[in-house]
């Protein structure tokens, strides 16, 4: 197990270098960010030159990348163009987005799995078709529609909540955004659980458990659910990364100053240090989440062992 983890961690290094380089080149390819700093006018050449030198933009891409990576390993992610260190931006943005993501995942797990189990056990009944219809609707409506609609109805029309989340973003205010963010994935979790449960409900071990005289609840939770969760856990693991990056739309709608906001602003202002820095962290999160999922397999399914 330990060896497996170490091997996986080592595999992350080339993936990490590759992705950061790709992002770096892509941000670079968009054009010279200094041009966009002077508003609608021709940049003053002397000042532009000074700014380029400050952000190493006057050097070739590979050299910029090497300089940038060198700094990252000493914990310096550079400065955004408005003078704020990127690490400072991360320190404010990540806790908020992590809170939002966790809330969303909790919604997915609780609501998604409960609905999945119910529908899986009652296949073909009205409950099943009803929930299926609902998931279809949820999957087909894009997040910005559900988000703005929920915001308008709850925030403006009925005045139950503040339409915009305050800068501190306490968990209470993040409930609605988290639900909106979770909706699409929630529908997937429901469907995945339903299929998996329905398939395993006829498996030999379930029949054995029932034959042993175990209670219905115990059979469902300990035997059936545990074995049916593998595809769901895989999905949730990759979804953590997706949710953090995909929070961009939700964060903009509800004015949450998290990762999505910083990324979006970084892209709009072609702020390469912000974009590359944040994406780098997201890449790491994604890789770690995947590793965690693989390790969870072993916990869920005794047949899986890592050497």
């Amino acid at each position, binding site marked *: 197990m330990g060896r497996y983890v170490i091997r996986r961690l080592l595999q992350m290094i080339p993936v990490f270098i590759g992705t950061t380089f790709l992002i770096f080149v892509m941000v670079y390819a968009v054009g*010279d960010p200094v041009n966009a700093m002077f508003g609608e006018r021709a940049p*003053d050449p002397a000042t532009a030159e000074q700014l380029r030198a400050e952000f190493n933009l006057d050097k070739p891409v590979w050299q910029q990348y090497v300089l940038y990576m060198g700094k990252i390993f000493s914990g310096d992610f550079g400065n955004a163009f408005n003078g704020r260190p990127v690490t400072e931006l991360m320190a404010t943005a990540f806790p908020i987005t992590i809170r939002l993501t966790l809330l969303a995942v909790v919604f997915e797990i609780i609501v998604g799995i409960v609905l999945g189990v119910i529908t899986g056990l009652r296949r073909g009944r009205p409950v099943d078709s009803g929930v299926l219809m609902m998931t279809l609707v949820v999957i087909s409506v894009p997040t910005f529609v559900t988000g703005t609609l929920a915001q308008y109805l709850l925030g*403006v029309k009925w005045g139950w*909540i503040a339409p915009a989340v305050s800068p501190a973003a306490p968990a209470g205010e993040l409930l609605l955004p988290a639900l909106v963010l979770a909706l699409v994935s929630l529908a997937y979790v429901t469907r995945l659980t339903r299929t998996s449960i329905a398939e395993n409900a006829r498996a030999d071990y379930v029949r054995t458990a029932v034959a042993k005289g175990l209670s219905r609840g115990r059979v469902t939770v300990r035997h059936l659910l545990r074995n049916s969760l593998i595809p769901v856990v895989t999905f949730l693991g990759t979804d953590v990364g997706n949710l953090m990056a995909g929070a961009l739309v939700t964060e903009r*709608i509800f*004015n949450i100053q998290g990762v999505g906001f910083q990324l979006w602003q970084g892209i709009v202002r072609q702020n390469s240090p912000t974009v590359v820095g944040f994406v780098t962290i997201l890449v790491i999160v994604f890789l770690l989440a995947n590793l965690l999922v693989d390790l969870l397999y072993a916990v869920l399914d005794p047949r899986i062992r890592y050497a």
Partner: protein
Amino acid sequence: MRGATRTTMTRRALAAAGAVALTATACGGGSTASGGAGAQSGVVRAFWTDPQHPVEPANTNEVQGGKVLDMISRGLMKYNPTTGKAENAVAESIETDDQQNFTIKLEKGWKFSDGTPVTAKSFVDAWNYGALVTNKQVNSYFFQYIEGYEDVHPEKGKPKAKKLAGLKVQDDHTFTVKLNQKFSLWPQTLGYSAYAPLPKSFFTDHDAWLTKPVGNGPYKVDSYTKGQSMKLSRNKYYAGEDKPQNKGVELKVYTDQNTGYTDLQAGNLDVVDELPAGQLKNAKRDLEGRYINQPAGITQTISFPMYDKKWQSKKAAMVRRGLSRAIDRKEVTEKIYHGTREPATDLTSPVLKTSGGYKPGLCGDACEYDPKAARKLIKQGGGLPGGKITLTSNVDTGSHRQWMEAVCNSINRALGKNNACTINPVPTFSKFRSDISDKKMKGMFRTGWQMDYPLIQNFIQPIYYTDASSNDSGFSDPQVDKLIDQANAATDEKSAVRLFQQAEKRILETFPAIPLWYQNGNAGYSSRVSNVKLNPFSVPVFTDIKVK
């Protein structure tokens, strides 16, 4: 465990919802309420986005940072929010005999919000800082007319001097300025925030100043959480006449204009000066008339690459004129911009007012839509070069793609040819900008101009003088240069304006650019506040806002 967390969270959410409902009613009733989403009594809550650059006078060139500087600093002059005219603020007098050497006397009694006095040195130091190339200030060019600018701000290499040779402190309240050319309207440029004075603390502890800027304006910064909010209250040392009518201002950072607008409708925000394009159509009705739509100092034009041989001939001018007459400006401004743009009929802007040089109709019939005349002019001019023309612009901001398509359609319709005009969208603004700098333009391209100060000079000289900083089309006409020089040397404003208008007329003879439309500033406000106005730079006049 899980269940427990859930109930507490739900309870908290309900509590939060209740609090909001309470504040919402409280706002309507006009009483006070505090708390997360609530408002402090007498404080204006305004829309803000994270400024692009650190907030310092010579490094702020967009509205969001400008908003702060407008509140916390006051320069020698100030622009009257209604008339746009420059009036004395810190200056007691600005005198000159030759339109080149100026003696500036400061009014006594001005102080920064930290209690230190505003002296001649506060200005001279601030200007020297702004002009020095190694300080990397994006507004450096504002000091380009002061003698010695090329020494502190050379095109290439290290600066030869640290200070502008043209600035001399005489005593605590007097300093002299020598310009490198005659510029009669120069004192009227001094209302822009780039010319604001700076306290000693700016130079001794720059980082601390940036985390909490200190100035001599009507407000002082109480707290500034970067990327989130800025709280301002009255500056008790403020010596100007426009004392704040409210207790303070809270600027709240929004990541999306739509959210700001929603918050305005929900009563959690009082002033929004960036309305989302999609809402312009409904804003007036949604906000029950609490909507502002007034001229801003921004114009849009279409320029031609005058550096290209094809466009230099006399006949080509007729083609340009013809293209101008083929554009149905009225339809575009109404259909795409819902009246937030006005068809342009000269090269300046209505913010200048007629006394400042704005002259509607100066462009003449060349700016009037007439497809028949357009066809005729283009035919006389020998047709479009190569039978086709492109219109280039970045499409990452604004509604550039939409209006470009509309303009091209209008031209095609007028010429009766389906693909005479095609659009050439460039993905990002910076790519577009570098293509322009590299003189790569082949056909028509978008040129926008946002004024630095409300003067006719600013709409003409930087764009049409030979080799001027924003002369993107490469236009050059000795006659125009001469008229601009004469205007700058004129002894009184009236004759200066008249000479600039002559230059404008002369430019429009060659027609290097097609005037499209004047841009308006828009804002919406809540029923909790009144007396909301925008100044010529489309920044809300916070000092005048009254809170109910």
